[in-house]
């Protein structure tokens, strides 16, 4: 029966918790007490099973590959060491033989000694060569490992760049598609306007038709446009809008024609836009216009005003 105090020692020994001096004393006690040794061994086995109570983790596959690579490098190094070791033994044997021969007769064996010295020198040379080759092999392996790691890193970067470019291409394709739609819309507008001009031309001489494109002064809608075709002979025109923002319930856009004959611009009526910023109206100014030098659109209260009060939101040509 093992005393309780020794059982405590055995448990602490199994867990590596004894101080070095205590551990040495305990190991000495075990040599003369097989029962105590068996207890310590069994407690070590029990302690080791605690490792299995840890939450299970699976090592990454790269760790196994790295380890096996390391083993391959170490295997080569071992081989070189074994070669060097054999050569060393060869030298020792050569020296022993030399000593024996010298003992038997130094005079006669002088030539043999010289030969052996040459062989020793050659062996030493061989050792130096093998050592150098071993060092080179180790260095090469380390360099190859570094290169492989660098290549993997570069590959990862390239993959990231490729993904970023693919995202950019998708964005550009989307923008391109939107631009095509916009271009088609503008082309349709232009065609419609040309058609109307053609109609007007049929009704009146072309020389009396004046076309003006009014550009937006609104920072919130820089793409908005108002196009006007003015027939001075008939004293009427067509106004067409695109992408013009709605005015809200209590306001209207009001068209003005600048004629040098009048001190103030002449009102040509009010208009509002539908959803999508489009509208098309036929307008007639309040006064006869002799020369339409410019057109402007202001934002006014509902129904319009006799003299412009609100901000000018479009002007041209």
């Amino acid at each position: 029966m093992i005393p309780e105090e020794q059982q405590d020692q055995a448990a602490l020994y199994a867990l590596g918790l004894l101080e070095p001096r205590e551990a040495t004393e305990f190991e000495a006690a075990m040599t003369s007490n097989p029962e105590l040794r068996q207890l310590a061994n069994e407690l070590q086995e029990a302690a080791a099973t605690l490792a299995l109570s840890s939450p299970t983790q699976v090592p990454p596959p790269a760790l196994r590959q790295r380890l096996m690579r390391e083993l391959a490098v170490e295997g080569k190094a071992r081989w070189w060491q074994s070669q060097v070791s054999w050569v060393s033994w060869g030298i020792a044997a050569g020296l022993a033989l030399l000593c024996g021969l010298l003992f038997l007769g130094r005079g006669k064996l002088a030539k043999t000694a010289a030969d052996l010295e040459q062989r020793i020198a050659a062996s030493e040379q061989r050792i130096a060569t093998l050592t150098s080759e071993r060092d080179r092999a180790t260095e090469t392996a380390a360099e190859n490992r570094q290169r492989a790691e660098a290549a993997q890193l570069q590959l990862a970067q390239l993959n990231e760049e490729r993904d970023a470019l693919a995202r950019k291409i998708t964005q550009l394709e989307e923008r391109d598609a939107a631009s095509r739609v916009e271009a088609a819309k503008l082309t349709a507008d232009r065609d419609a306007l040309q058609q109307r001009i053609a109609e007007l031309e049929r009704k009146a001489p072309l020389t009396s038709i004046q076309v003006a494109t009014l550009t937006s002064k609104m920072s919130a809608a820089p793409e908005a446009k108002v196009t006007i075709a003015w027939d001075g002979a008939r004293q009427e025109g067509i106004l067409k809008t695109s992408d013009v923002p709605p005015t809200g319930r209590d306001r209207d856009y009001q068209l003005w024609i600048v004629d040098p004959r009048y001190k103030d611009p002449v009102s040509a009526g009010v208009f509002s836009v539908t959803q999508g910023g489009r509208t098309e109206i036929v307008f007639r100014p309040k006064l006869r216009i002799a020369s339409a030098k410019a057109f402007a659109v202001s934002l006014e209260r509902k129904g319009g005003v006799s003299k412009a009060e609100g901000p000018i939101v479009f002007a041209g040509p």
Partner: protein
Amino acid sequence: MGEQSPQQKADVEMITAAARGDHSAFAALYDRLGSPLYSLAYRMLGDAAEVQDAMQDVFLEIWRRAANYDAGQSSVFTWAVLLTRSRVIDRLRARGRRSHLLEVSRQENEVLFPGVASTSGSGADIVSINEEAARVRSLVGELPVEQRQAVELAFFSALTHQEIAEQLRQPLGTIKARIRRGLMKLREQIR
């Protein structure tokens, strides 16, 4: 060592072959022991990158010292676990992670049985290890709480038994007795 199980015999064959320089035998041994040793190191170090470095060192040491393994002293599993634990403790001490250890051990006191992490491994070795791990968790769970606490702190931290006594605010003799009783009970259960 008592009579060896078939798995223990297979382990001895693998390490004997590895001692002769057989790489494939060593790879098989890695497949068998990799997950439990990695799990142990991860629980003690808590940092994946450091655990990988530690495991590389441990397995290289197993490879180099395979010829020194004595089947009469312990099973291959026990030998490898104690080697891993020893190297991990060296790392913790060398890197001045004492405060980390104390924190980890405190956390372990609060959660004595953390949940089992999901694994992505497969194969007979992992299945076998998982079954064995479940059995061990169940056996450890059957220990009285105070014994389990003392044994787990003693095994998973780099604390001395005096430090364990201080942390659990118990006399040193009580801690020694709890460790002894806990380990003895575990030994009886796994027999």
